[in-house]
């Protein structure tokens, strides 16, 4: 079935009695659902993650990114303030920025040289008065009434977020205290250094990756790297945090220091393996104490499409960008910090083998969404079941639960009206 045929059929109703415990597959397949998401999510009262503030140190610095499917320019203005606006000329809609990043005085469209300030205001029209009193722009044309759409911009711990809705609640309120604290735990008080960035193109609807990243249940089952090499025999404890409205989450695990007393050391354990398979170079698992706690893993998501990841000392931010109903971009930014010693930096770089498109514990996530897309293609009206850990969306101290996925769908339905 191609996209236009999907649209021509009336959109089914969500089986309301099922709440967030059932997710109909049509929600991943339909162009009309993507339209609603464009209007009510990405252009609506949500905060889109845009970039790291460290990318925009000086006046005139800009990056070209995306908010949902909308191309956006983020700038540092002459006044030191951050601005974000559509990457779209006020005149006939061409892209304004044709590079990913740079430093500029303004944005002059290549098509007809209409000029836009770092704040996204239209400030110049080529041949405005015509040539020799002939031609030129219509009388009464006011530049201030034309221009690309602007976003509200707020920054938290060096993360730059933008919203197209001027009435969206403040970023602080949007995140809430618990999520904010967990972000501060990773990024607070330090200056990040970008170690790399990549785009992973996934053959599936963006929400399948959101589900995956919120799914603490699959981690030890799908990702067999740690179990095959018996690298996580240490007593782990962990849990999930689901924000009040369900939209954001944190999955975390830590070494249970008390339960570890009297056992073999970590190093001894990871050398031995029941499956007779072991790593030849265990330096991959070397780590350093970076946080004032025993948390070895923290995956945090902000509704609708931002992820902050800490896996040991591997820190990355991920943005989940829709590209129509059947495709998405997963944008990875690998992060270190200015304060890293050379040894610490090397540990981070080594651990980056765990993550990304070829990561030991993440490569499976690249294909699983495609498996779901292909598996469900003939059954738009059937549903996925989310019954692990009951049917609620509560915070819990175990991770064999799908509460954070149900939380996402609760907030998704509230925001989209689906």
């Amino acid at each position, binding site marked *: 079935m191609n996209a236009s045929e999907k649209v021509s059929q009336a959109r089914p109703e969500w089986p309301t009695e099922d709440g967030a415990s059932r997710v109909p597959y049509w929600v991943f397949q339909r162009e009309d659902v993507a339209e609603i998401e464009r209007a009510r999510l990405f252009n609506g009262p949500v905060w889109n993650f845009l970039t790291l503030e460290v990318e925009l140190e000086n006046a005139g610095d800009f990056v070209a990114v995306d908010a949902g499917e909308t191309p956006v320019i983020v700038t540092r203005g002459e006044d030191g303030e951050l601005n974000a606006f559509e990457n779209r000329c006020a005149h006939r809609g061409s892209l304004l920025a044709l590079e*990913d990043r740079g430093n500029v005085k303004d944005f002059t469209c290549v098509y007809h040289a209409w000029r836009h300030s770092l704040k996204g205001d239209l400030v110049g029209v080529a041949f405005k008065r015509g040539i020799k009193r002939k031609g030129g722009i219509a009388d009464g044309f006011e530049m201030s009434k034309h221009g690309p759409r602007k976003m509200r911009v707020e920054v938290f711990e060096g993360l730059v977020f933008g919203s197209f809705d001027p009435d969206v609640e403040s970023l602080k309120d949007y995140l809430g205290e618990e999520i904010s604290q967990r972000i501060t735990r990773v990024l607070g008080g330090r200056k990040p250094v*970008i*170690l*790399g*960035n*990549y*785009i*992973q*193109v*996934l*053959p599936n609807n963006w929400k399948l990756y959101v589900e995956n990243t919120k799914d603490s249940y699959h981690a030890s089952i*799908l*990702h*067999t*790297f740690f179990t*095959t*090499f018996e690298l996580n025999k240490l007593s782990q404890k962990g849990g999930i945090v689901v924000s009040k409205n369900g939209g954001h989450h944190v999955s975390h695990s830590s070494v249970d220091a008390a339960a570890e007393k009297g056992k073999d050391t970590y190093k001894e354990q990871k050398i031995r393996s029941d499956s007779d*398979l072991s*790593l*030849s*170079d265990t*330096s*991959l698992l070397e780590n350093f104490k970076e946080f004032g706690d025993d948390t070895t893993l923290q995956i945090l998501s902000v509704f609708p499409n931002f992820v902050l990841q800490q896996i040991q000392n591997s820190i990355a931010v991920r943005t989940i960008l829709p590209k129509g109903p059947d495709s998405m*971009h997963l944008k990875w930014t*690998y992060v*270190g910090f200015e304060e890293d010693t050379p040894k610490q*930096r090397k540990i*981070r*770089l*080594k651990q*980056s*083998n765990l993550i*990304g*498109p*070829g990561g*030991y514990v993440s*490569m*499976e996530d*690249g*294909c699983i969404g*495609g*498996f779901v897309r292909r598996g469900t293609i003939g059954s738009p009206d059937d549903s996925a079941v989310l019954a692990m850990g009951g049917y609620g969306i509560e915070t819990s101290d175990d991770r064999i639960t799908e509460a954070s996925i149900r939380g996402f769908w609760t907030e998704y339905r509230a925001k989209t009206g689906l």
Partner: protein
Amino acid sequence: MSNLTQIRDLTSLIAMVQGRYVHTIDDGDCHEWPDFFVDDCFYKIISADNYARNMEAGLMWMDSKAMLHDRILSLLEANVYERHSYRHILGQPFITSVEGDELESETSFMVARITREGPTDLFVTGRYVDRYRVIDDDAKLVTRIVVLDSNQIDTLLGFPL
């Protein structure tokens, strides 16, 4: 730069070694892939954009032959993905410098991916930025930086490039 005969000999040596290299990954036993490297080798996959900006991280970042072994072991024994294979097409090696028993070279490549039920897709293009050590009639990789032309990777990166 050394004389033409020497460069021609080295070019054909590197072309021979690289012919075996791609055969090993695409059609042979990829357990043998690490044997193309010296013990304290460095192997990294990075995009051209990240390479130009001196970004430190890579899609793979390995600083020992043992880590290369582990990559293959994990790929064959631990990781989960749909059955697929790669087909490497290499350009001629371009020797950029020779110092003692070591040389630097660059080689363009294209890699197609063939997935279980899918067609043949162009997966990545790029160049190898290499440092080889000539040992008897063979050459081993001291450093291989795999510089991908695009910043985008489709689905996942499994086998080495």
